[in-house]
């Protein structure tokens, strides 16, 4: 006798060129079950869900929906089979009402006309069905993030969804809102919807999941019941390797202070933050998403306004009003979002690398000396081992890791003294990650001061000499080398904010 599954994935594989994103993955969801999917960044969770929802097509394997084998060739076909997905980034149209967003594809009652009363009534029913009395006539931009998420879930429900995938649904929610979301999920369970719950927050998973599947490097490590394992077991299943192999030791000769920030404040986002970085030191900034990590480095770099506070470099106060001021003072920023802020995709590697220090390769009248430029770019491309045909190749053609190296090369070619790294390994494969780790160590060894923001706990623990933990835009504590542990960081990051278990591997 076979158990009935809402959806069953059997031995599915998927590769992108030479990279095996998924290898023989089997995964299933029962009706009325919350099945949690966990794993590190790049473990293949999102790829698996994209295969299931039709964004990607599997290379091999079988997918069954309600027992019937299916081919899901597009998100549209996925929808028709009853597979809905709510992404981490909400995909609502802010200026439309809740009802309009829910029925965006079927607004018309006929003849291209909208029957507002009917529309609002049906939307109201859906919203109440998940336990929320949200006015369907309210504009989405006027709703809280949690309510927006409920609207998005209701939109999926409006299409008769049988399996609902939630990708990091709580990463944008306040603790009270998380409770609201869980209420809705319980209602969906009761209605027999199969739920796939992707999250890095282990405490949540232990609270609501019926089963947990761990993915690592594109393969299933195991499927367990929450009662059978401890959070620690789960973490070691996810990591599966020892830290020392990823993070080589470095002999840190820490020198003089190169940058000091005093009493940095900006509205309610940053409150009185002070810290200092010394030459040869890697200072980590840890904290939950939304704790103000990026805002702080962006403010130091002049990309965001500073309301109060001082930035001091080698005992000299700096006036930083724009990124230009920061660059001229020897501060560099590798921004959080590589493609939108770090590189110019349509330009060759060479032009990207010389962007901040183009004067080094220009002659009279601002004429770029291409030979000299190419030589400079080549020198840094080799130093950072950027894998490309030549320096004239467009950055868009490179892998994520190599794109990130272009961003680093760009700053190394200026003579900066402090580098601010905001999530430098996001969206980068494991091999390139290790190269970037080595590079960070080398840069520190060469006497640069480094500030590293990372949501990957392993990186913070493995790379940093000191760690500043933030909570709600304020410094919650400073940790020094032997004290940099996951438990200490998380305790500071969530202290007072949540109840439940303090263990939460926060990786996105």
């Amino acid at each position, binding site marked *: 006798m076979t158990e009935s599954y809402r959806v069953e994935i059997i031995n599915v594989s998927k590769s992108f060129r030479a990279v095996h994103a998924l290898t023989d993955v089997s995964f299933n969801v029962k009706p009325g079950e919350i099945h949690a999917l966990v794993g590190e960044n790049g473990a293949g969770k*999102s790829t698996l869900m994209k295969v299931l929802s039709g964004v990607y097509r599997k290379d091999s394997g079988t997918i069954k929906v309600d027992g019937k084998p299916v081919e899901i060739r597009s998100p549209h076909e996925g929808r028709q089979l009853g597979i809905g997905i709510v992404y981490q*980034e909400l995909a609502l149209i802010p200026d439309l009402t809740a009802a309009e967003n829910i029925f965006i594809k079927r607004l018309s009652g006929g003849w291209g006309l909208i029957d507002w009363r009917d529309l609002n009534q049906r939307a109201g029913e859906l919203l109440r069905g998940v336990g929320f009395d949200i006015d369907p006539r309210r504009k989405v931009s006027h709703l809280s993030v949690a309510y927006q998420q409920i609207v998005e879930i209701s939109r999926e429900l409006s299409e008769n969804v049988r399996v609902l995938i939630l990708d990091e649904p709580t990463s944008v929610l306040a603790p009270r809102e998380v409770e609201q979301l869980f209420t809705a999920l319980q209602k969906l369970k009761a209605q027999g919807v199969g739920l796939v719950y992707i999250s890095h927050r282990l405490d949540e998973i232990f609270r609501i999941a019926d089963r947990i599947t761990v993915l690592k490097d594109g393969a299933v490590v195991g499927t367990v019941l929450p009662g059978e394992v401890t959070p620690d077991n789960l973490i070691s299943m996810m990591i599966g390797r020892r830290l020392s192999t990823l993070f080589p030791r470095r002999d840190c000769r820490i020198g003089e202070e190169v940058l000091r920030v005093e009493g940095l404040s900006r509205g309610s986002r940053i409150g009185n933050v002070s810290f200092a970085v010394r030459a040869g030191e890697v200072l980590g900034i840890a904290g939950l998403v939304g704790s103000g990590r990026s805002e702080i480095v962006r403010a130091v770099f002049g990309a965001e306004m500073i309301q109060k506070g001082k930035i001091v470099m080698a005992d000299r106060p700096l006036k930083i009003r724009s990124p230009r001021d920061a660059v001229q003072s020897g501060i560099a920023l590798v921004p959080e979002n590589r493609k939108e802020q770090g590189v110019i995709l*349509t330009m060759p590697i060479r032009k990207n690398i010389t*962007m901040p220090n183009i004067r080094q390769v220009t002659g009279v009248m601002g004429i770029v000396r291409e030979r000299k430029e190419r030589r400079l770019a080549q020198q840094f491309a080799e130093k950072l081992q950027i894998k490309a045909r030549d320096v004239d190749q467009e950055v868009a053609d490179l892998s994520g890791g190599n794109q990130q190296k272009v961003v680093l090369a760009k700053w190394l070619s200026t003579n900066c003294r402090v580098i601010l790294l905001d999530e430098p390994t996001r969206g980068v494969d494991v091999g390139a990650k290790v190269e970037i780790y080595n590079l960070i160590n080398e840069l520190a060894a060469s006497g640069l001061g480094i500030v590293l923001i990372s949501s990957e706990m392993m990186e913070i623990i493995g790379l940093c000499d000191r760690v500043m933990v933030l909570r709600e835009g304020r410094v919650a504590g400073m940790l020094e080398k032997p004290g940099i542990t996951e438990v200490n960081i998380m305790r500071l990051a969530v202290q007072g904010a949540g109840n439940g278990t303090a263990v939460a591997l926060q990786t996105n």
Partner: protein
Amino acid sequence: MSRRQTGSSEGTAPESGMASGRPWDNAVALVLKYNTVLIFLVMIALAASLSDVFFSEKNIFNLLRQVAGLATVGLGMLLVILTGGIDLSVGSLTALASVIAAYFLGSMPLLPALMLTIAISTLCGAVSGYLIAARNMAPFIATLAMMTIARGLAFIISKGSPIIIEDPTLNGFGSAYWMKIPLPVFVMIAIFALVAFILKFTVFGRMTAAIGSNETAVRLAGIRTGWYKFAVYCISGAFCAVAGIISTSRTGVGSPIVGTGAELDAIAAVVIGGASLNGGKGTAFNTLLGVLILGLIGNIMNLMNVPGYPQQVIKGLIIVFAVLLQGWQRRSDA
């Protein structure tokens, strides 16, 4: 400008495109890549087959002289469009320049009059540039305002009627020849060479295109993006003055109605030349071809005695066709 991507950071490898070595595919790719050149050649061939007089020296130089103004304005427009902006004021600034050049010639010698004209037009561009770069106004809005302001000023200064110029030097320039080539054509070539040089060899050209591709990344590299954005509108204004002076010298009058709709022709030329209105993509050579293509359409139909109204329809169709071709190219690139 934010281009939000849905989905998460995992799985960055895109689906691989179709790479084929078949000669036919290569030929198609080549045609699509050089679609502006292709359209240009087709137009030439069409013109030559439809009219015997097309290849006559007189006709060719007439054509070139006619497009000299549009080319000048269009190349300025290219710089603006490369940054991701747009300049709707070019037609009006041409008229304003035409009028003030004639007006100043009534009271001062040639050189200061022309210098002053260029300075005023540049200043108008600077006002647009300031509003856009420093006050964050949308380029469309800022230059739309400048468009009506400049046109209004042109009418005020000329009191609504053309100003006839007496200066024989300027009067002769527009219709004069050197080595059988009309002088405005030399101006056009000079402007073209200047813009091509700027775009290919200078930091200014590099940054202009980079800003249009990804302004945030350029700003975060410590580049003064605002300064470059400001500068392109100044240059566009200066080029409008040159076009206005050419117009005045050719017709012998400073007229407040010249350049009506020229902003649209200039944009059309840049777009036919394969530039992207989102910025970052476009070359001086292709823009020049775009200008010549527009000129050819008019020239062919004039030679064939097609009346003005159908000419407009055909011009519109050719713009649509050119841009469709580019769309195919982009898809085959992906």
